[in-house]
């Protein structure tokens, strides 16, 4: 089943010119800025300057101009426009769009090849994590001693909002973006995604959203937290409009990507690839995508309502007009809790894959793994009000939401069962992915146990809104998801580059990050237990020691991430060569050459069994 033939080049001659073939990220930025200016100019001159919403209306117009210009500039609208005019893309056009014979230039273009999109997602994830990480360092530096010293309080408040959203966006795409695009189609035995152009659209829309979000830092005045607390967000300056529009644009990206992933897995599987033979990571990817399709419309809705309150004088969330911040909190957390599992599930599913390959054993109780992920996704849409236990909204619903929240620990426990069962008595190959996986296991249990405290209302009445909560969800996102994402990166990196991620540097990064996480967030738990609220720019002397330790730990994590970044960059061209199947795994992505050719397979494979037959008689050639 190994495909040995390189993809033959059918269009050896370079394709002709035309404006559409010169479009790349630079033209996208130019287009975005031009249209943003154009929309600003029109809004500035034609809207009623005496309206108290004038500046918000102008800002929202500008951001709409930005994204339209960005889409035009990158070439997202070329193919639909040509189709409308009756001049549909030719095969040569489609091959050009897929990046044929374009070398590295295609990584800066609207490229439909799922592997290019996967690599673009790797870069985007690192950019977002880097920007969010720099803000985290600024926040921790401000908190190293009591008092306001390094960062202006107003700027600090903006930092916590943008740090939060940047990191959430980064982690939503951290596993599902790179690997949902790069490996899922190959795992299914498909030549590409079901909708290759939509794939490129989702990536470049994310870039457009990230551009808006980073711009908010310059625009400033973001006193509302990443959750966009109402009604305080209604007081915030025009930075709030950019922030909310960035979220709306981002939800377009995730929706398009989610539909694409689900359609690919449901319709593009090769012959014999039944649902029960799918690699478990594919299951994780589509369950997370489906959950995202449920959750993210709320995100777009709540930010759109925030914008409407600010521009058209609606009063969804403003008490003086008959609205309530509780509505905002409900809508936000209807998205916000499922979103945690949109982030977590792909990472967990990737770890199931890694555990099986590295322990040289089948995934233990494959169906339990699917049941656990499905159960978690289902439960996660019923727990949102545990984020509102102390808001005063509907105290009588406290009991029911406590019930649903605590039930979460049952499917989460199944994840541990599957991981432990898979590793049990295996020959565990201690390579980078495995090491980061063990880091995940150690951190995820702390994340889980501290979540149980917070699900209990009497305890939540004490700890809600404190650094304890912050430490809890950082154990989830940094300690667990980030570790899972790095494990996935180390695992599939050889498939992307043909080279191993440097083992030594990767281990240094691991120890810095692992010890850093414990130092940072265990001390942050202490701050919370001792009574320090969240989102503080300064604090009382009794929190001095724990905050100092937290900041030291945060620097360690950053040092670890910088070492990892160095490893990713230097190993890309200079790492140890890995060959097409360095882990001797059985799933389809390891059966194609490295790097996989355009359209992956010369001849589509036929599948007769699942990819976990380690130690069983049939071994694939």
């Amino acid at each position, binding site marked *: 089943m190994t495909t040995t033939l390189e993809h033959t080049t059918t269009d050896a001659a370079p394709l002709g010119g035309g404006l559409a073939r010169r479009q790349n990220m630079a033209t996208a930025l130019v287009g975005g800025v031009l249209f943003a200016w154009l929309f600003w100019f029109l809004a500035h001159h034609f809207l009623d300057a005496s309206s108290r919403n004038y500046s918000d209306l102008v800002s929202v117009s500008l951001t709409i101009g930005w994204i339209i210009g960005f889409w035009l500039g990158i070439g997202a609208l070329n193919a639909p426009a040509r189709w409308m005019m009756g001049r549909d893309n030719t095969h040569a056009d489609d091959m050009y769009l897929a990046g044929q014979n374009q070398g590295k230039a295609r990584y800066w273009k609207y490229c439909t090849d799922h592997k290019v999109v996967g690599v673009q997602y790797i870069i985007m994830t690192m950019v977002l994590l880097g920007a969010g990480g720099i803000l985290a360092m600024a926040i921790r530096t401000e908190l190293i001693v009591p008092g306001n010293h390094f960062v202006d309080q107003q700027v600090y408040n903006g930092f916590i909002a943008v740090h939060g959203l940047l990191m959430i966006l980064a982690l939503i795409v951290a596993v599902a973006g790179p690997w949902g695009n790069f490996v899922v189609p190959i795992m299914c035995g498909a030549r590409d995604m079901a909708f290759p152009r939509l794939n490129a659209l989702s990536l470049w829309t994310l870039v457009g959203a990230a551009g808006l979000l980073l711009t908010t830092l310059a625009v400033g005045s973001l006193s509302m937290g990443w959750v966009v607390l109402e009604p305080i967000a209604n007081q915030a300056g025009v930075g709030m409009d950019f922030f909310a529009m960035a979220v709306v644009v981002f939800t377009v990206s995730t929706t398009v990507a989610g539909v694409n992933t689900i359609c690919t897995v449901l319709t593009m599987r090769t012959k014999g690839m039944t649902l029960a033979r799918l690699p478990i990571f594919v299951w994780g990817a589509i369950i997370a995508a489906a959950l995202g399709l449920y959750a993210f419309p709320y995100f777009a809705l709540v930010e759109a309502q925030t914008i409407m309150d600010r521009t058209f004088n609606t009063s969804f969330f403003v*008490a003086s007009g008959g609205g309530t911040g509780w509505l905002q909190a409900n809508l936000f957390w209807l998205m916000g809790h499922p979103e945690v599992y949109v982030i977590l599930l792909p990472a967990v599913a990737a770890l199931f894959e890694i555990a099986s390959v590295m322990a*040289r*054993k089948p995934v233990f*109780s494959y169906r339990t793994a699917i049941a656990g992920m499905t159960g978690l996704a289902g439960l996660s849409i019923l727990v949102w009000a545990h984020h509102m236990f102390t808001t005063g909204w509907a105290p009588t619903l406290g009991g029911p939401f*406590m019930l649903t929240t605590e039930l979460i620990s049952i499917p989460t426990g199944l994840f541990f069962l599957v991981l432990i069962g898979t590793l049990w008595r295996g020959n565990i190959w201690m390579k980078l992915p495995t090491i980061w996986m063990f880091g995940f296991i150690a951190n995820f249990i702390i994340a889980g146990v501290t979540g149980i405290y917070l699900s209990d*209302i009497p305890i939540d*009445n004490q700890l809600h809104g404190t650094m304890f909560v912050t430490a809890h969800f950082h154990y989830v996102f940094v300690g667990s998801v980030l570790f899972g994402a790095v494990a996935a990166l180390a695992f599939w990196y050889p498939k992307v580059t043909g080279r191993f991620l440097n083992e030594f540097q990767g281990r240094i990064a691991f120890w810095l990050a692992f010890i850093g996480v414990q130092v940072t967030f265990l001390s942050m738990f202490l701050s919370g237990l001792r009574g320090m*609220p969240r989102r503080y720019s300064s604090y009382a002397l009794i929190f001095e020691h724990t905050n100092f330790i937290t900041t030291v730990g945060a620097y360690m994590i950053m040092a670890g991430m910088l070492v990892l970044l160095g490893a990713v960059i230097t190993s890309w061209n200079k790492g140890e060569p890995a060959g097409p199947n360095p882990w001797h795994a059985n799933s389809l992505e390891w059966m194609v050459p490295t790097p996989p050719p355009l359209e992956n397979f010369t001849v589509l494979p036929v599948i007769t069994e699942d990819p976990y037959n380690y130690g069983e008689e049939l071994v694939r050639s």
Partner: protein
Amino acid sequence: MTTSNKKNPYRGMFLTWLVLTIAGVIVSIYAPSRLMPRSMSDNMHLTVLTMIVFSVAAAPVAAGIYAFAIHALRHWTHKGEAVPAAGPVVRENAVVVTTWLLVSTLLTVFLLIWGLGALAVDNGSSSKNPLVVDVTGQQWVWSFSYPGTHVQSNELYLPVGREVEFRVTSDDITHGFWIANMGVQVDANAGTWTTIHTTPNQLGTFDIRCTQFCGLNHAFMVTQGHVVTAQQFTTWLDSQPQRA
């Protein structure tokens, strides 16, 4: 890899689990009351107790995960560059899955029953005649008034041993009213009232901090409260300037 113990290869894992569990239980019993602010109310007492119970319940679970990880890293790893041979083929084990589900469900049910019971106690109002205090948050100060007395203060005074009903609201945006020593926290929302009950049972001074992000000076929206004797409380009330 083979294990060193010939009798039972899992004896080491069990011992690790036992040691970690015992250590975890000891920490669970001693740590919460020492790490958290001094308890000054019945709610806080219940909160600390619940922390202890949940920690004790979680200790064997977390210890199990760590004991497994330590054992796996010591005995089940493959060293060297060569590809490891395949491990034992175990695709399903109905007994293990069922037991796991059963145990995790029972633990969850226990936590839930304890939690619902604690919630009922926490929400219950034992007194028919609680002291009512109106709490108002605004950017970035707290003010407290005592209905029926025309007294308004920026510091909170409470008599010991009498149930208090806080009626909380806001003049502008949402704030979070929190007494870390009493385990009570509720948001102050503009245009509506939220209530929360507690009974102070220790004399002393405590901090009131805002737990809901409220803008520029959120970190400085702090005031002090005092639990005093009933006698002192009456004296204090009488000494305050009367507002019309």
